[in-house]
């Protein structure tokens, strides 16, 4: 009995925060999205799908988040592996290197990219000098710019999730594989990678949800012409004061992410068990 009571006591602050900070606002959002001048209405959702404009924004949001997640995984996995296997001093330095950018505001880091990627910035100029791209070529205000900026912002989440999992793997498993004649890459593929899937899933979830819901970096690097859903929601809340439509868009984003994440979560859960 006391055990159960203690469990509830320990859970209470977290549950309370979840209820007040997540469930309640989400419920309000859902209510707002179907609320009209004459009560219940689905007109906000109908407006979203009336032509290709908003669905194309939704598609861009999901597609960019997927690419960002994939790139973070490809870059993050080798990095996390080395960090998990190197000596503790080097690991400390590497962890600090990964975490350090998180201590600067995302806006500041994005401004750095704006300088590099703009028309006269280092990156765009180099590409032009090498003969790729026309006279006014620039990376700013392209989807590539959004991907570059977001990967830099979100990579630490992937690396840290993977490192935690890989660090707990027994190195003797790899040694066993190698003594049995497996190549290094073969060991990675058939031993480390499958065992690291929970970390990969956790990292991907974090990166994907953060990428799909962010609007500061996409709006600064992508500009007014490449809208993402979170940016469209922001615009409807602050500029056109159309909160019902904003709520509908947020609901669609929420449902879209949930739809993609549920199978993904099951994948992680099965492997874990």
């Amino acid at each position, binding site marked *: 009995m006391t055990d159960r009571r203690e469990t509830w006591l320990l859970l209470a602050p977290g549950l309370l925060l979840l209820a007040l900070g997540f469930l309640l606002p989400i419920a309000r959002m859902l209510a707002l999205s179907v609320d009209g001048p004459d009560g219940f209405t689905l007109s906000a959702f109908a407006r979203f799908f009336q032509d290709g404009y908003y669905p194309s924004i939704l598609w861009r949001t999901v597609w960019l988040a997927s690419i960002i997640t994939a790139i973070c995984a490809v870059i993050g996995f080798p990095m996390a592996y080395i960090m998990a296997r190197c000596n503790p001093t080097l690991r400390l330095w590497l962890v600090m290197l990964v975490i350090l950018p998180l201590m600067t505001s995302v806006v500041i880091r994005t401004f750095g990219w704006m*300088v590099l990627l703009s028309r006269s910035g280092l990156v765009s100029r180099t590409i032009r000098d090498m003969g790729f791209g026309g006279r006014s070529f620039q990376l700013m205000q392209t989807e590539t710019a959004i991907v570059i900026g977001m990967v830099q912002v979100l990579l630490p989440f992937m690396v840290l999730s993977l490192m935690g999992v890989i660090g707990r793997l027994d190195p003797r498993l790899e040694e066993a594989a190698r003594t049995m004649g497996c190549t290094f890459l073969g060991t990675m593929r058939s031993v480390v990678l499958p065992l690291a899937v929970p970390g990969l899933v956790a990292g991907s979830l974090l990166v994907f949800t953060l990428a799909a819901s962010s609007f500061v970096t996409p709006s600064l690097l992508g500009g*007014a*012409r490449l809208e993402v859903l979170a940016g469209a929601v922001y615009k409807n809340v602050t*500029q*056109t004061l159309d909160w019902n439509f904003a709520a509908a868009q947020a609901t669609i984003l929420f449902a879209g992410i949930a739809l993609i994440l549920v199978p993904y979560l099951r994948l992680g859960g099965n492997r874990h068990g």
Partner: protein
Amino acid sequence: MSITARLAAAAALAVAAVPAMAQELTINSFGGAYEQAHRKCVIDPFIAATKAKVNIVTAYSADAFAQIRAQKAAPQYDVIHFSGGQEIVAAKEGLLAPLDPKLVPNLAKIYDFAKEGLATGQGPAYQIAAVGLVYSADKMKTPPTKWADLLKPEYSEHLVLTDISNGYGMIGLLMLNKISGGTLDNIKPGLDAIQKLLKQGAVMVSKSPEIQAEFAQNGAWLAPYASDYAHTLKVAGLNVKFVPGAEGTPASFITTNLVAGRRNTELASKFIDIQLSAPAQACFADALRYTPTNSETVLSAEVAATVVYGKDAAAGLMRFDPVAIEANRSAWTEAFGKAIAR
């Protein structure tokens, strides 16, 4: 009498009792460099002349409007400033009191177009942000002269447009729309023009600092924007000039209004009078490059060259109906988003 009404009445009495003891005025201003100039050009001279105390509340137009609307039973502001046309609605709702020309002698010197709404209770415009052509004097040997120059294909790769979320961007769109044959009931010609310019290589930004970056680093020559921001660019070290477009100069009016239901009307009128005076307007133009509305304002040659100034130039100023803009904002924002989407 309900409890709220009784409380409001009590509060109104309490507030009304205060000015009898101390000369005090509550106004709003817009913060930052604007508020500094406001202090220097209007508030300090007012305090020197009347020995009254001035409470400044930093509140942008929309906020300030929401406040005086909520305070209708017991208003807390004496003078309220708007930049987004809120005085039209406020006057309609009876929140503003008409000015007495006897208490505000400078009103007679204000250009007629800047005090059109006076009869209905709207305050006069004490300064005007004029939107025209901001261009790089280094790059454009033949300066642009008219709005139609924005449409020239040879400039497109060096043209910076501002999106509709920005107040000046909205005005720029409506002006492009006007010269392309559109009206406030049909902004399609304007959207088509913008779409075409973007296809030809123009850049679209949404915030003022991005315009600065485009001019400073990214080879921008030309942008439809406000005279005060051209001055900001100049202060930042860029050789940028402002010229009003020949087809007309759309403008954003900044108005000063007397709040209804306050006791110290005389003091507030005095404040407005100082605000409308030629020295205060010259001071404002010098600090921020807004167009003065007092016909007797004398500007130095240097300042005069960078703002819309003088009777003839000021007569070219026009204003898109703020009520129509508000009514259409949501629909236009969506249409604009669709037009510029890649």
